[in-house]
């Protein structure tokens, strides 16, 4: 009964979305306040209807109602409760329901918190947002209905893919989707602005918090996915340039560019047309991500619904919104007035450089991801584009970006003094060079470039600290003045500083683990020892064990360093009951210096096991860096000036409010 109720709510949501698309947009056109005003209750009720549908499905999962086909195929009665709940989005139909739920959540949030928006803009934004929701709801109801019954109901379900039964992965999709879908708001604002033919700095001020929120969640969502792949898949790596990883990474790159160009637009009224275009492109890349993941056109780790019909439907949605958005842009953009002027060496100039490099990087990732598809279509050749391609193209673009990063925030708006900024960054440059010297002096066995890569990360971090020091006049003003400035520095400035610091930390982690990873693969018998990166691992043998819904062989390794015991690692090989599928659980000992990572392979002839041991130096900094970026975004979002609904009065008058 609850299922039918949920199904009904889903259909109602479709109707509400259709209503919300047409009526407010018409109202905005004929300037009828009553027609425009229906957008708000419609957006809120659309959200609640989808919430009902979502909880109806979750109820079916939690109570293991196998008369629902979706539950029967993707769940199992013995599964732990948390995975029953996360199982809702561990499959195609449920994850699409989550997708529209978040889409509606953002729409409802604009309706509720967007009191300061002009009424026509708000009506148009909510109408565009509803049109996206409508398209996806239609997609769900026609091709991917999660509420279909299965009569007779099977005695038990088929279970969730065991590698998805994992805490980090339970929360990875909701975060990732919040990021993906959050960019829909920027898109809706862009389309609404194009419809009205008017954009100004206020537009950027409204869009930026939403974009920032979406960016934060996408950042943490990608990081969680990467972390999961690292410890769960047992390959010892954390990023594989897999098509689906790229699908989430492209909107992130474009969204990062959008965040920065919207800043220029807000402060200086420049880059208006470009920002609108970026807003359209960013969400289009999100849609393309959905297409790549859902259609299975590209061979990937994640392609869990290979169905041509669905692929074509999502492709149609993508073409409609991307094509429609770009067509509207082409029609209207020429009418937009060009904004403020600036010298190439200026804060604006540095942000343009940031955009140029990020967007070019997005394009290279796009080419690498789609090239196999295009080539197969054209010549029929089947190819794969692997990590070497991305390392050769994406890497060189990040180099100037990271080098220029510390300069940007220190340059003045309009016209900056590069030399003076360079002098202020002396400390950061010295710190970076010091790192290079120390690495070479201690012991260096890796690639010659690696110490410079780590130094680059240190330069970015030290640059963030320099910026902070110079904003609070550390060393040049009195102590009271410094403290006062540190306290009064806007939260958005702290957010920027933290996010940039996090980027530097992440770079240190990426370079460290990529350049200095050590790996041993061998056959070990009980009593054998393997040495890696100064650790000695003694294999104590393997023993069978029974988990809640799997059997496993747990191996034991006693780890010592220079004779002193460090830890015991227990990697295992599991065989799940339903579906009967083996997985590998890595044994990981994490420390600041790096992770010791051990994976069990097959049992060999005799009583030996194939064993893979890695030492991944500094790998922890990758996720710590992204976490700091996430919190930086959050602190920035909590800034009064950015808060949705807060008075729009500028605090420029304040002596240090300048960003």
């Amino acid at each position: 009964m609850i299922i039918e109720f949920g199904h009904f709510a889903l259909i109602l949501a479709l109707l509400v979305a259709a209503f919300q698309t047409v009526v407010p947009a018409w109202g905005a056109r004929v300037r009828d306040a009553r027609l425009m005003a229906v957008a708000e209750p419609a957006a809120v009720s659309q959200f609640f209807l989808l919430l009902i549908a979502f909880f109806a499905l979750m109820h079916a999962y939690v109570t293991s109602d196998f008369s629902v086909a979706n539950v029967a195929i993707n769940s199992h009665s013995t599964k732990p409760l948390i995975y029953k709940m996360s199982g809702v989005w561990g499959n195609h139909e449920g994850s699409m329901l989550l997708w529209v739920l978040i889409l509606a959540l953002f729409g409802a949030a604009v309706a509720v918190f967007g009191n300061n928006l002009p009424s026509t803009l708000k009506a148009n934004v909510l109408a565009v947002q509803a049109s996206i929701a409508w398209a996806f709801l239609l997609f769900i109801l026609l091709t991917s209905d999660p509420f279909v019954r299965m009569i007779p109901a099977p005695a038990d379900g088929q279970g969730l893919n065991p590698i998805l039964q994992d805490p980090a992965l339970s929360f990875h999709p909701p975060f990732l989707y919040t990021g993906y879908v959050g960019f829909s708001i920027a898109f809706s604002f862009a389309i609404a602005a194009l419809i009205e033919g008017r954009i100004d700095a206020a537009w950027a001020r409204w869009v930026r918090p939403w974009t920032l929120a979406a960016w934060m969640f996408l950042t943490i969502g990608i990081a969680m996915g990467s972390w999961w792949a690292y410890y769960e898949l047992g390959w010892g790596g954390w990023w594989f340039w897999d098509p689906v990883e790229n699908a989430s990474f492209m909107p992130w790159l474009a969204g990062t560019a959008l965040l920065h160009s919207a800043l220029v637009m807000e402060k200086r009224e420049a880059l208006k047309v470009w920002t609108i275009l970026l807003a359209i492109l960013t969400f289009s890349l999100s849609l393309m991500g959905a297409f790549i993941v859902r259609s299975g056109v590209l061979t990937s780790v994640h392609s869990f619904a290979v169905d041509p019909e669905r692929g074509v439907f999502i492709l149609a949605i993508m073409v409609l919104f991307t094509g429609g958005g770009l067509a509207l842009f082409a029609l209207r953009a020429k009418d937009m007035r060009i904004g403020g002027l600036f010298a190439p060496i200026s804060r604006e100039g540095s942000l343009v450089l940031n955009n140029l490099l990020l967007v070019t990087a997005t394009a290279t990732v796009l080419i690498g991801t789609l090239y196999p598809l295009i080539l197969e279509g054209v010549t029929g050749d089947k190819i794969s584009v692997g990590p070497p391609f991305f390392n050769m193209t994406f890497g060189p673009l990040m180099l100037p970006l990271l080098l220029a990063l510390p300069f940007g925030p220190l340059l003045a708006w309009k016209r900056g003094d590069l030399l003076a900024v360079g002098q202020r960054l002396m400390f950061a440059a010295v710190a970076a060079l010091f790192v290079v010297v120390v690495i070479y002096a201690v012991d260096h066995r890796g690639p010659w470039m690696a110490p410079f890569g780590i130094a680059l990360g240190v330069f970015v971090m030290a640059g963030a600290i320099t910026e902070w020091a110079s904003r609070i006049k550390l060393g040049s003003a009195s102590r009271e003045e410094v403290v006062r400035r540190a306290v009064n520095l806007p939260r958005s400035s702290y957010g920027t500083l933290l996010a940039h610091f996090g980027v530097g930390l992440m770079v240190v982690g990426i370079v460290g683990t990529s350049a200095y990873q050590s790996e041993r693969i061998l056959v070990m018998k009980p009593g054998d020892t393997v040495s890696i990166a100064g650790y000695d691992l003694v294999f104590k043998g393997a023993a069978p064990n029974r988990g809640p819904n799997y059997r496993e062989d747990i191996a034991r390794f006693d780890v010592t360093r220079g004779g002193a015991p460090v830890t015991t690692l227990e990697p295992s090989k599991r065989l799940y009951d339903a579906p009967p599928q083996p997985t590998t659980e890595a044994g990981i000992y994490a420390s600041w210096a790096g992770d010791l990572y051990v994976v069990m392979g097959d049992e060999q002839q005799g009583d030996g096991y194939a064993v893979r041991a890695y030492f991944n130096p500094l790998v922890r900094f990758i996720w710590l860096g992204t976490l700091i970026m996430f919190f930086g975004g959050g602190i920035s979002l909590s800034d009064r000036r950015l808060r949705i609904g807060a008075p729009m009065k500028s605090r420029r008058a304040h002596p240090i409010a300048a960003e």
Partner: protein
Amino acid sequence: MTRKQKRGVLIGSGVATLTVAAIMVLFALKDSVVFFHTPSDIIEKAVPAGERIRLGGLVAKGSVVRGEGTTVSFKVTDTLKDIPVTFTGVLPDLFREGQGVVTEGKLDAAGVFSADTVLAKHDENYMPPEVAKSLEARGVKLGGSAHPEDKAN
């Protein structure tokens, strides 16, 4: 600087960045693209030894032989032709006889494929789409769906 010059700098740097990126992309594509072949392709097209390729098909039944240490040899078949493969390392969880597999590596002069990467999928009925398409094109009937991939290298 005049307005025109400012715009010139902007456009110039944009064009320069895109040009450099385009050149990099072309070079990288030339060097790092890996072609996919089935065993029949390799024999018919006479793929030269030493070229980095992907070889996909089914692990031939009864062909898996464990050698010294972690070295394993097996045959990849598309039911028409077989190619012998050697691999040193830990095989993915779902590597099994009779199931789909994609390997990456090089052919040696003797026609043995020396793989450094083995990909298998987390599904009993899984068949890598490239393999399925090639086999279907050759009239071999197969079913299959995709599930998360498993990899070893």
